[in-house]
């Protein structure tokens, strides 16, 4: 007598799985087509608060210690390395800098991997992380955070390299009642700190909602 393999159970399993997947796909499609997310966009406001500059790139953030940066840049300028718009190492967060008449001090962030001054945005979740401590030092009554956010996108990515870290940091700062502003930067339009008396674009404003 021939023995046949019974495939009923296999068919049952396969048809169960396929059926559930089809239902899920239909539900997910209907759900996605009807859902619209509303983004509340803060508006730039004139302010007496002074900016604390932060660069967001490759999901990492660096809080710029302006005293240290300016003193390092001044040393380079004294040595003649900063003349003629030459790009020189800043000895800070693997950043390179450039002195420009119109843009002030320009920051070039190229290879930041391995730098201890750059912190991944996920470290904001940790209580004692260096990034959290640096952001906590911002005094909401006197200061606000200003982000230079890299919008360059890697292959296969859907977001600018600094977008996610900026959003997370902004949310964290909002919970601490610290205002923040930002502008997109890239290799052609790098981050720069300058005085408004030199250039009208040297304006760093906090953005917030009318009710804030």
């Amino acid at each position: 007598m021939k023995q046949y393999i019974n495939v009923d159970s296999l068919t049952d399993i396969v048809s169960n799985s396929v059926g559930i997947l089809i239902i899920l796909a239909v539900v997910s499609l209907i759900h996605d087509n009807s859902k619209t997310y509303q983004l509340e966009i803060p508006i730039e406001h004139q302010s007496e608060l002074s900016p604390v500059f932060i660069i967001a790139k490759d999901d990492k953030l660096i809080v710029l210690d302006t005293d240290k940066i300016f003193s390092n840049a001044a040393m380079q300028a004294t040595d003649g390395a900063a003349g003629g718009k030459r790009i020189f190492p800043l000895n800070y967060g693997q950043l390179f800098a450039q002195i420009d008449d119109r843009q002030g001090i320009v920051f070039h962030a190229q290879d930041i991997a391995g730098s201890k001054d750059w912190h991944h945005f996920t470290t904001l979740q940790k209580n004692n992380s260096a990034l959290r401590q640096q952001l906590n030092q911002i005094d909401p009554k006197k200061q606000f955070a200003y982000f230079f956010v890299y919008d360059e996108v890697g292959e296969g990515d859907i977001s600018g390299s600094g977008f996610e870290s900026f959003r997370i940091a902004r949310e964290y700062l909002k919970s601490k009642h610290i205002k923040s502003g930002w502008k997109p930067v890239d290799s052609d339009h790098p981050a720069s700190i300058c005085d408004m008396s030199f250039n009208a674009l040297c304006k760093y404003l906090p953005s917030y909602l009318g009710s804030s």
Partner: protein
Amino acid sequence: MATKARRYARYLPEKKLEISLFPFLSIFLSVMGVLSFINILSSIHTPQKIEMSTQLEQGYKVAFQIFSLPEGIIIVPPIARLEDLQQVIDDANVRDEIASIIVQRKQFIADIKAYKGLIDDFAIEPDIDKISELLKEIRFINEEALKHNFLYEEFILFGIYPDGGKAYHKVRDVMARSQDASSISVGLEPLDANWTLNINGTPVIETQQQERQ
């Protein structure tokens, strides 16, 4: 009784306990399949529709939206409350001028809705003269609203897509040099590439943007 039952039990044929694994396997594989499906769905980042809004200060600030893409900008001007503003203006010349702006803007929105190609193709390189003209227009509208005590103020709302910074900087360069822009408020927000636009509820842009994904 108890000894009789024990004696009887001794002669019962031994039966192996057979457990069918089929229901367990069926549930297990079904759950596995569903979880992998959900995982795949979330990993491919299904497009999300977004609509930019802002907390309107006492309800009178209206967004003049500029979406900044790698290929250029897409301008989405507001229309709705502009018609109300036109009603309260007594000067016929000004009223005509606003009427012409409304017609132009309606035509612009209609063009966006009617456009059948990819949304990227609709983006235009920011042109200095065009931007200056728009800034002048916004200033004119805001000043007329203020003159007539009508609670209406247009502000520029930038939605910046990845690699859209170049077009944004061009517009801001023009704004920095323009006197007209000094009184215009600005808002800006980073947008992900899979966030599709919902322009006044038009489905055309959304479909095209999804195709691009």
